[in-house]
């Protein structure tokens, strides 16, 4: 494992509500080397957004709490840091982009001001030096006429430009990890295409690790090197993109791959995934996908399947692959 990058071990975060503890993130482990991207795929309720919040230690209070695990960024366990030290990490060591660019920006502050905020906070830049950096950042994210656009307000930019401005703010301090939580979901598809290529280009240059969260599994191969599929708070399969996409092992992964109509796919009927995701309060002992799985058999309800290594870095939690001797 090359030094640098993100290592997450058994991250567990619960939401404590009156009805019980919601196991939003239940023992999640993955690595993201520097300069590489991991796609975290799951539907709503899978825990992917909670995982992002847990990494940033921004779980909703007072209900959310990290219960166990390690989050190592370049060797330092973030979970052991004090809140003050963690604040120094947020925006500088780790940056995050959210789904909705409209609410990511303050509507009454100019774009240039907001893009420069991390620089002001972490690098203490001011005045002309700050201005030049901001213009440079805006240019890097391919926003035309940055000198004028700086003085614009968020609503004067298109959705795609807003999202790029948000990206500029995120990348201002050269973070070592960028968490992108569904950054293209609210963008038009052609805008999305450009945005993803832009992200890749910047990543090639700056070599940060990227966690790309999405509900659309088909976005993953265009930008990610690795992929992890999440269901009901746990990762059920992960590995290199090529491996997981050409040889998907977990039935849920396969179902996700087949579940969306594809333009280049001539097959005329789609198979939906029956049923609904389980409650995260009492998920039960067995495999959490079991009740919806067309391949389920007797072992599946009894115990949670352990991790099985299929090939170099391709792992799956499924009794179909990990039958005990």
């Amino acid at each position, binding site marked *: 494992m090359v030094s640098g990058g993100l290592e997450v071990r058994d991250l567990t975060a619960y939401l404590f509500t009156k009805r019980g503890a919601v196991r939003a993130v239940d023992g999640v482990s993955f690595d993201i080397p520097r300069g590489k991207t991991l796609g975290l795929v799951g539907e*709503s309720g899978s825990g992917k957004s909670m995982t992002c919040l847990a990494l940033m230690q921004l779980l909703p209070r007072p209900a959310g709490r990290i219960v166990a695990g390690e989050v190592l960024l370049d060797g330092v366990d973030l979970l052991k840091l004090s809140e003050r030290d963690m604040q120094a990490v947020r925006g500088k060591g780790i940056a995050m982009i959210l789904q909705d660019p409209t609410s990511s920006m303050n509507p009454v502050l100019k774009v240039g001001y907001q893009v420069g905020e991390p620089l002001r906070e972490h690098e203490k830049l001011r005045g002309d030096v700050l201005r030049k950096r901001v213009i440079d950042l805006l240019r890097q994210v391919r926003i035309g006429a940055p000198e004028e656009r700086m003085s614009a307000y968020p609503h004067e930019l298109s959705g795609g430009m807003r999202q790029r401005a948000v990206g500029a703010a995120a990348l201002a301090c050269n973070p070592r990890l960028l968490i992108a939580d569904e950054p293209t979901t609210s963008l038009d598809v052609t805008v999305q295409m450009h945005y993803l290529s832009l992200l890749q280009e910047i990543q090639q240059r700056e070599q940060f690790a990227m966690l790309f969260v999405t509900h659309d599994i088909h976005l993953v191969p265009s930008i990610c090197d690795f992929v992890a599929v999440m269901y009901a708070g746990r990762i059920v399969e992960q590995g290199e993109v090529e491996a997981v996409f050409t040889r998907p092992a977990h039935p849920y992964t396969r179902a996700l791959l087949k579940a969306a109509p594809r333009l*280049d*796919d001539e097959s005329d009927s789609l198979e939906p995934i029956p049923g609904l995701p389980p409650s995260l309060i009492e998920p039960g002992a067995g495999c959490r996908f079991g009740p919806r799985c067309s391949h389920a058999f007797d072992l599946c309800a009894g115990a949670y399947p352990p991790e099985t290594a299929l090939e170099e870095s391709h792992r799956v939690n499924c009794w179909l692959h990990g039958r005990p001797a």
Partner: protein
Amino acid sequence: MSDIVLSAESLTKTFHGRKRWLFGRPPVIHAVSNVDLRLHEGETVGVVGESGSGKTTLARLLLQLEWPTSGTVRFRGRAVDELAPPGVREFRQTVQAVFQDPYSSLSPRMRIGEIVAEPLVVSRQLAGTDVLRRVAEALERVGLEAGSAQRYPHELSGGQRQRVAIARALASSPKAIILDEPVSSLDVSIRVQILNLLRELQAQSGLAYLFISHDLSSVRYLCRRVMVMYLGRVIEEGPAAAVLARPKHPYTQLLRMAAIPRWKGRGDQNPLFQADEAGDTLNLPSGCAFHPRCPYSAPVCIRERPVARELGPGRYMACHGYEEPLHEADARHAGDAGVSNRSPLLE
């Protein structure tokens, strides 16, 4: 050729924004410009476009939620603004809608049964127990239990709510349903369930659909014909399978390219990929609205707006380059820009 249920001629809608300063002119937004449309009974037509294309405004115009600035909407040949109240009632009964957001589509304080019954109650088609029966039937047709009529919307999931919205649209036995992004807010696995439901319903009842979406794949899955809109105009139209597999207009080609996932690092050579970001309906470019982004634009594209021309039976395109072989070559490119990821393990 079967009857036309709904049609539009030269439909145009412009909005006026707020004046930026006291003596200037208020900005004009050309949301929809000169759109013609014909929806026959039993036909499924998709309308594809991104934000700013005018597809939602088009839906609202057809549904009489907005008045056109010019042009006519016709219901079974009669202009809708000339309809007397019985005609209006018939229109409402015949043309229904399903919208994108399942969370705001249902009145929070009404029970599901009442929500689904509303079109019936309002049109006074049925009364009393007949209404209850029809509601129960509608709920069952969309895959919900009849007992859910007693529940409130907040007790249902997004997918279930959208089914309720569909049940309500079906209640009055309409001939046409306008669906504006009906599955975009749903999870991927639920999306398929709803798309399949829509397909079944169409096959069973011979409903006409006007299916509006930015997602080319859903449109191809559900629709026979497709209209592609860009900045308020229809720029390409034809059989869905042909248009989406081998698009002729550069914008449609761009859409197709964006819709097909590519592997990391490949497929960026296509000149379409360099196309700049979207225009907006506030500052419409001269001539062809797409020319600033079009890698093939010629001087004529800046001067003159292209008129729709017939390329083949039922196939139209508005582009000056429709004769050029360049488009054919690039249409082929756009076709295989994606790599198939069908694993041998999949059936």
